[in-house]
C-alpha cells in the first residue's frame, strides 16, 4: 500500500501507545501498574503535548478504570485502557459488566504473574483466566504484533456483529520492555482501516431517555447472555476478515493461527505470545538435525479457533504445547484443555503434551525446549496420548 515502510525501534509498550495514538480514542482511563506503566505514561505524554485530543482519566484504581471505560463507552465514545496482572484481577468484576452491556472497549494487557509471591514478570495466566468473561482475546509475540493488534482490536470490537470488548496481551518485560524493530502505519492508513464515525447504538446521553444496566431476572437473563455467545461466534469471522484487510493494508501477513513449517511435519509445537518465537527457533534447530517438526502459534484465544486447530494439527503425531500460565489441579494446561476439547472425537489427531513453563518470567531455554520435544516424542512412541508436566524448575 504505502510505498515506503517506516521503521522505528520501540518497546512493546511504546508500540501499543503509538498505535493507540493513531486511533486517537475519545477516552482513555488507566491506572499505572508494572509492566504496563509505559503505555499509560507515553499516552499521557501524547495527551499533554496535544498530539491526541483524548480525555485521559487518571483514575484511582483499575476497578475505576474499567468502570469509567464502561460509562464512557455507553455514552458512545471510543475507549481504550491498559493494565496487567493484579490490575486485571481488580477489573475482573467490571469485565463482565463491559461485555454484558456490549461495550467495545479495547484493553491492552502487559501479561504479568499473579501474586503471591509477588512478581512483576511475564506470565499469561492473568489474561487466560478472563477467558469466560465474553471478551475477544488476542496474544502478540512481538512489539510489531502489539502495534498491529492495538489497531486491529478496535476494528473487531466495534464491528456491529460483535460489539464486545477486546483484550490483547504481550508478555511483561519479555515484550513490553524489549526494544524491537517496528514497522509503523501512517495516520491515514489507520483512519482508512477504522471508521471515523462512532458506533451506532443506544447511548447514555442527554437526548435519549434510556435506562442502562437494569435488573434482569430469570425471565430474560439467559436470552441476553445467549446474544453474547452469538456475538462471540460472529467475532471469529470478523477477526478473520479484519486480519485479511490489515494484511493488505500493512503488507504483513496476519492470521488467526500462524503455521511454521507444518506442511510436512510429524511433530508440532503449539504456543502463543513470546514463546512462539522460541518454538520457531527450536524448529529451525531440529529441522537442521533432520527432525520433521513445525510450530503453530495461536493469536486469537477467544473465540477459540477450534477448526483451525484441527486443520493445522491433523496428521501430526504429537503436539508439544508450551503454556506460560499456571493452573492447579486442572486436567491439562489452560490452552491444552481447549485444544483437547477442539480435537475430541476427531480422527487423525496428535497426542497432546502440555508443559507449564516460564512462570514469573522464568526463561525456558532452547535446549530445554528440545528436551521437552524429546519427552513428547517418547510419550507418543509408547502410546501415551495426553500428558501434562511442569518444566524448567528446580526439582
Amino acid at each position, binding site marked *: 500500500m504505502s510505498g515506503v515502510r517506516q521503521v522505528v525501534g520501540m518497546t512493546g509498550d511504546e508500540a501499543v501507545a503509538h498505535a493507540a495514538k493513531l486511533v486517537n480514542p*475519545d477516552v482513555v482511563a488507566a491506572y499505572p501498574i508494572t509492566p504496563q506503566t509505559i503505555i499509560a505514561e507515553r499516552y499521557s505524554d501524547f495527551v499533554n503535548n496535544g498530539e491526541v*485530543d483524548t480525555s485521559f*482519566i487518571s483514575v*484511582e484504581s483499575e*476497578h475505576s478504570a474499567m468502570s469509567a471505560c*464502561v460509562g464512557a463507552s455507553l455514552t*458512545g465514545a471510543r475507549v481504550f485502557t491498559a493494565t496487567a496482572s493484579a490490575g486485571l484481577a481488580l477489573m475482573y468484576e467490571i469485565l463482565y459488566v463491559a461485555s454484558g452491556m456490549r461495550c467495545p472497549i479495547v484493553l491492552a494487557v502487559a501479561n504479568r504473574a499473579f501474586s503471591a509471591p509477588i512478581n512483576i514478570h511475564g506470565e499469561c495466566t492473568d489474561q487466560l483466566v478472563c477467558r469466560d468473561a465474553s471478551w475477544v482475546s488476542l496474544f502478540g509475540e512481538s512489539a510489531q504484533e502489539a502495534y498491529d493488534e492495538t489497531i486491529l482490536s478496535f476494528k473487531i470490537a466495534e464491528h456491529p456483529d460483535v460489539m464486545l470488548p477486546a483484550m490483547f496481551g504481550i508478555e511483561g518485560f519479555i515484550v513490553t520492555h524489549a526494544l524491537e524493530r517496528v514497522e509503523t502505519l501512517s495516520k491515514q492508513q489507520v483512519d482508512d482501516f477504522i471508521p471515523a464515525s462512532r458506533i451506532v447504538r443506544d447511548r447514555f446521553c442527554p437526548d435519549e431517555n*434510556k435506562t442502562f444496566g*437494569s435488573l434482569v431476572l430469570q425471565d430474560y437473563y439467559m436470552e441476553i447472555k445467549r446474544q453474547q455467545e452469538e456475538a462471540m461466534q460472529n467475532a471469529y469471522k470478523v477477526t478473520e476478515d479484519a486480519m485479511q484487510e490489515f494484511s493488505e493494508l500493512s503488507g504483513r501477513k496476519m492470521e488467526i493461527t500462524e503455521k511454521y513449517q507444518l506442511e510436512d511435519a510429524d511433530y508440532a509445537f503449539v504456543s502463543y505470545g513470546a514463546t512462539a518465537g522460541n518454538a520457531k527457533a527450536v524448529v529451525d534447530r531440529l529441522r537442521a538435525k533432520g527432525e520433521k517438526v513445525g510450530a503453530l502459534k495461536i493469536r486469537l484465544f477467544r473465540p477459540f479457533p477450534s477448526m483451525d486447530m484441527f486443520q493445522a494439527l491433523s496428521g501430526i503425531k504429537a503436539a508439544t504445547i508450551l503454556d506460560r500460565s499456571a493452573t492447579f489441579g486442572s486436567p491439562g494446561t489452560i490452552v491444552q484443555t481447549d485444544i483437547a476439547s477442539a480435537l475430541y472425537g476427531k480422527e487423525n489427531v496428535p497426542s497432546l503434551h502440555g508443559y507449564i513453563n516460564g512462570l514469573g518470567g522464568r526463561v525456558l531455554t532452547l535446549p530445554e525446549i528440545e528436551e521437552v520435544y524429546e519427552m513428547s516424542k517418547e510419550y507418543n512412541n509408547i502410546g501415551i496420548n495426553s500428558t501434562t508436566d511442569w518444566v524448567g524448575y528446580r526439582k
Partner: protein
Amino acid sequence: MAIVLPKVSVKDLQEWSKLGEVFTSGHRLCAGCGAGTMARQVTLAAKVLGDPMMIVNATGCLEVASTVYPYTAWDVPWLHNAFENAAATASGAIEAMKSMQRKGLMRERNVNMIVFGGDGGTYDIGLQSLSGAIERGHDFLYVCYNNGAYMNCLSLDTHIMTKDGLKRVTDIQLGELVYAFDQNTNDLVLKECSGIFDNGIKEVYELKTLHHSIKTTINHPFLTVQRSRKNYENKLIWKTLEKLKPGDEIIVLKDMNDGKRYSFKEIKISKKGDYKVHKINEIKLPEESNPDLMEFLGLYVGDGWTRPHKAETGFSFPENSEARSRLVFLSKKLFDLEPSTAHQNDVYLYSVNLARFVDSLDFGKGAKNKIIPSWVFTLPYEEKEAFVKGLMQSDGYSIGKSNRYVSASYELLKTLRLLLQTINYRVGKIHQQTKKKGTFVVYRQLLEDSTYGYVCFSKKKKPNINKYLSQAKQRDFLADNEYFSSEKIVSIEFIKEEPTIDLRVEDEHNFIADGIVVHNTGIQRSSGTPQGAATTTTPPGTVIPGKIEWQKPLAEIMAAHDIPTFTASPAYPRDLMAKVQAALKHDGPAFMLVDSPCNLGQRYAPDMSMEIAKLAVKTCFFPLFYTYKEDWVLTGISSRLAKNPDRKLPIEDYLKPQGRFRHLFKPEWKKKLIEIQDTVDEKWERLVTKATCV
C-alpha cells in the same frame, strides 16, 4: 464562589409539581421507603433548572426496585454499572461527552449529572471511587441516601408461635417471646426475638410434610433427624432446604398443652342512663375465656356476624339444626340472653355490649376474612377443643373419625390447621374448590358461584410408648416427646419470588414457623449504621448492645475534599430541593448526604417515615447544613434549633419509635442511652460553634 441557597416557597413546589415526574410511578420500592421520596425531590429540583439531567445509580434498593427489565421508572437517561463504582462510571460518561463534544461528535451543552448511591455503596465499598472522582474534579452531584444498613427468609404469610399466641411473621416485635426447641432437653421453651430482618424478594419454596407445610427460601435451615446405626443415638442436625429431600425427617410441633385462660381486654360498656340510652339488654359479659364461651365463639366464627350499630350479633343457622339449639342453650347459659329465633334461617342476639365484645376479639369481618386470632393459641386444651367443636357444628361434618371443616376464608383454614397442630390432631392439606350456584354445601345451597376450601383432620391416637417405645421411635423419633414429633418431608416445590422476612432468636437460634422448627438467619451493619443500632452483624448482645461505633463522618470527609457538601432530609423538601439546585449550579463536584428512613430496616410503621426523618433533625442527630471550604451554615429547622436550644428534642424521641433501638431501652443499657445523647450533644455543639445560621 460561595454557595447561595435559592429560596423555595410552597408556591414554587406547587408550580414545579406540574412539570411531571422524573422518577415515575410503578417502581417497586417498599411502601414507606424514604428513598423514593428523596429521588422524586432531587430529580424534580434538577428538572426545574432546565438543563438535561443524566443519572448514574449504584447497585442498591433504588436501582433494583426501579429498573426490573424490561421496565424502568426513570424518564431520564439512567445508567447502572455496579455497586462500588457509580462515581467512576459518571467520570467516564462526563469525560466521554467532553471529548466527543471537542471532536464535534456530540452537541455541546450543559448537562446536570446526578449520582445516587446508598450508604453501603458510598460510606464503605464505593468511598474510594467517590473520593477519586471528586479529586479529579468531575462535575456531578453525588447524592448518598443513607438508610443505615445493608438492607436485604421466610415468606411474609408465615405464622410464628409466640407466648401471646400465633402471629404473622410481619407482626412480630423485637423483644417478643417466641417458642423454640431446646436442643439439649428437646423441650418447648420461650426465647426472646432479638432481630427482625426484611430479606427482600427471594425465590420461595414450599416444603410439605403429611400434616405441615411452610414457604421458605432455599437457604433456610431446618432441624432434621439424622438416623444412626443400630445401638447408636440418633442425632438432630440443621440442614438447609437445598440439602433436604423428600423422605428426610424434620421436627414439627405436635402439642402445646400448657395454655391458660385468656383475660379479655376491657371494652366500652353501655348501660342504662348513659347519654341517649333508655333501654338496653343487660347481659353478663365474661372476664375470662371458658369452654362454653369458646364453643359459642366457634359457632360465631363459623357462621356469625356483628353489627354493633344495630346491637346485633347474628348467626345463620337454619331451624332444627343442631347448631341453632346449641346456640340458644349457650347464649342463655353464658350471657343470660334469649335469642330471637323467629326467622327461619337466622338467629339474632340483640345486645350492643355483646356485639362490641365479639368485635373486640379480632376474628375478622366477613366470611372470606375470618381468622383465628393469636390469643386462641394460648388457651388450655379443653378450650381449644370446645372452639373446634363450635366450628364443626357450624360449618363442619364428620365421616367416621374424620372431620372436615369448610370455609371461604383461606386464612381461617390456615390458622385452624395450625391450631389443630397444637392439640395433637392429624391435619391434611388445605383443599380448594369452586362450586356452582345452587350446589348444596354443608346443609346450605350456594347463593352464587363460590370458591371455598376445606381441611380434614382427626384425633391422633397416642402410641403405647411405655410398651413399644423403640417401635414408636422408629416411626417418630420424638414419639416420647411431649411437644414435638418428627415428620417425613413429602415434597419441596418452587412457588414464586416474593418478599421474605426472617427472625433472630436468642440462645436457641430457632423458632416455630407454621408449626415447623426452623433456624433463624442473618440487615448487616455499614459504616453509616448509627451507634447502638441492631443489625444482623451487630446484634444486641448481653455484653455489646448493637453497633459499637459512631457513624463514619461522611459529610465531613467529603467536605475535606473542598467541595460543596450538603445534608438534607426528604421530610424538609424545600430545604432539600434548594440544596440540590445550589449544588447543580456549582461548577465541579458536590456531595449531598440525605437521611433516608427505611421502615423495614429501622423497624417502624410505613406511614411514619417522614415523622422519623423529622425527629432525626429535631433531636440534632442529623443536622441540616451545608459547608464549602471554611463556611459552615445551618439551615431550616437546624438553624432554628441553634438559635433556640431549648426546642431541641432528646435523642430518645428519635430512638424510641424505631425497633432497631428497642433493646437500648432496657434498664441495663440506660448508660448507653446517656452515652449516645452525650455524643449527639457534643457533635451538635461543635457544629453550632463553627456554623452560622440562615
